């Protein structure tokens, strides 16, 4: 059996797509000073609401819109808890994740749990037969539009500068007339939308169906990727690709005769070991955003 290198690279881009969307959402949040552990639940809500709206309306675009709205609302909830109420961000985030997952599972049971699986339309791959380039539309958008646009916005736009200012030094930003709370609300709502769209990739592009626990910890991986990428767009995208290539490689190695005797557990752990190793090498001495985890109150 020859080794399908291009198939592994194609799989890498597919596996990385939801991670890129959600991790860039987390970058926006954290650059504004808020750690959003609601990411796992927000992805879950995006996956479920996208599926739900598509199943109800028969329109994929309606599903994308619903995922987007669910993300905006999840971000607004996080903002209410962490910005307006100023609560501990870890607690607010975990609570949001538990809440969103439970609401989605509850609704899923009421509407869809009749023993059979509901399937919907899903996005087709562009350029079928195009090898590496045969990917879903959201993969193209993630790498060619979202990442460059966000890189530019954070680096050069007024919004990006204000966002970084409230994340680094909200007192100074406030003194300079930047509305701290509003900027953080905007960051959380925008970031939430990206996370939810990342989740919707699983249902609306990959599968065309919803299964409970569909996100399976991808949100937590994104939290690690953001630290690995030091809150910068391109390194975070690189981290997602590193994890994805390790995952794609282990899936292929697991069924390659030469590696048949390697214990299955070692191969499954491989992508996580790669990320942990990478964090251990490049993740030391990271400089967190100045106001990370700190609610802002005028003294």
């Amino acid at each position, binding site marked *: *059996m020859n080794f*399908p290198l291009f*198939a*592994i690279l194609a*799989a890498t881009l*597919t*596996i990385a797509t*939801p991670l890129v969307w959600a991790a860039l959402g987390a970058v926006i949040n954290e650059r504004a000073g808020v750690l959003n552990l609601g990411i796992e639940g927000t992805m879950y809500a995006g996956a479920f609401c996208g599926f739900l709206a598509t199943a109800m309306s028969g329109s994929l675009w309606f599903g994308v819109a619903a995922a987007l709205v669910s993300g905006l609302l999840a971000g607004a909830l996080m903002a209410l*808890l962490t910005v307006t*109420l*100023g*609560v*501990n961000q870890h*607690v*607010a985030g975990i*609570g*949001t994740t*538990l*809440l969103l*997952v*439970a*609401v989605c*599972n*509850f609704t*899923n*049971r009421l509407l869809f*749990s009749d*023993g*059979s*699986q509901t*399937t919907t339309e*899903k996005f087709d*791959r562009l350029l079928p037969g195009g090898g590496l380039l045969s990917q879903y539309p959201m993969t193209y958008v993630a790498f060619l539009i979202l990442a460059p646009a966000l890189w530019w916005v954070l680096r050069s736009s007024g919004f990006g500068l204000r966002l970084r200012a409230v994340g680094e030094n909200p007192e100074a930003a406030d003194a300079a007339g930047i509305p701290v709370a509003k900027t953080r609300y905007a960051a959380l709502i925008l970031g939430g939308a990206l996370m939810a769209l990342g989740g919707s990739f*699983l249902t609306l592009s*990959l*599968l*065309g*169906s919803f*299964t*409970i*626990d*569909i996100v*399976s910890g991808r949100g937590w991986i994104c939290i690690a990727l953001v630290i690995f990428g030091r809150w910068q767009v391109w390194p975070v995208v690189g981290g997602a690709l590193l994890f994805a290539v390790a*995952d*794609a490689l282990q*899936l*292929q190695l*697991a*069924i*390659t*005769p030469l*590696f*048949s*005797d390697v214990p*299955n*557990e070692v191969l*499954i752990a491989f992508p996580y070991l790669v990320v942990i190793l990478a964090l251990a090498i490049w993740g030391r001495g990271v400089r967190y955003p100045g106001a990370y985890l700190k*609610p802002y*109150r005028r*003294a």
Partner: protein
Amino acid sequence: MLRRSSRSPHRFLAALGVASAAALVLAGCGGTTGDEGADDATSKPGASDVPSVFGAFATPLEEPWDGAIHAALESAEEDGLIAYDHTDNLHTADEMERALRDIATNQKPDIIIGDAFAAEDAVRAVATEFPDIAFAFGSGGEEQAPNFSVFDNWMQDPAYLAGMLAGGLTESGTIGVVGAMPIPEVNRIVNGFIAGVEETNPSATVTVSFINSFFDPATAKQAAEAAIAGGADVLFAERDGVIAAAQENNLPVFGMMVDQQDQAPEHVVSSLLWNMRPTVDAIVEAVVAGTFEASNLAEYSFMVNDGSSLAPINTGTAFEIPADLIEKVEAKQAEIRDGSFETPVDEEAPAGSTTIGE
């Protein structure tokens, strides 16, 4: 700064309370709809004439394994054989133990059916405490006298038949299987499938991927894509997600647990079905007759007892299924049903890539 730190504990506690209360209420809703069933069961006239059965499941009912047990119990209730009530998502051993003790003390059902894989010791301890209740649990262990019977999804028979079909359908000579994890319940199905492939295609290669999760369809699909990249042109979806890959790549695929033909009407050749009704009927009959004792109920899941089967072979596939292949499979199915062929049971973990005859 001082003012802020003196205020934050209150805000912290208030928000913690709100967030966790909301999450708990909703998590409770999501995990358990048993209450609705309870109202149903008690309001039904004559409910007391038939044995009462309580289902106690470790995973959410959406998990196909527990879903199959639940479906059989619901159908038995519809037929008027039992009064049925259930709870699910008891995903830790202590949660399962607490729920079982609560059910046994307060609901006092005649029979408790569930799955014990994640909580063998806890479930068996409760069974010992309540010897008047018949316990029947999905389990990898032995039965325990006097009142703890075990069952499992012994689906090697339909797996063998599906393997025969897969071996006949492959043109590349490579077949891809994607399963949850290498545990005996999965291994014997995958090995039964490989044995079936061997019968119709003695030189085929079967690749087996495990995704180490019961619910991760996105990874299962990537594993299927990897199998396809490795040359597979027929797939077996032990887990969800694989059918989507087969459909995108226009390949034959076999489903699992329920008939999944409607998910990809042109690509799902057939599905392996587990029918818990014979097991449930055997338990209920024994309890009604007063003869229930601890036993291994495995045989009630065998095809010879209608406990498992192969879904009707799809006639509307995008590719042709040779008539002589279907004949061969039907002949083997008849042999299994009349007892002249017994599918070998092998619970060893299959290799990532098995080339038959090597």
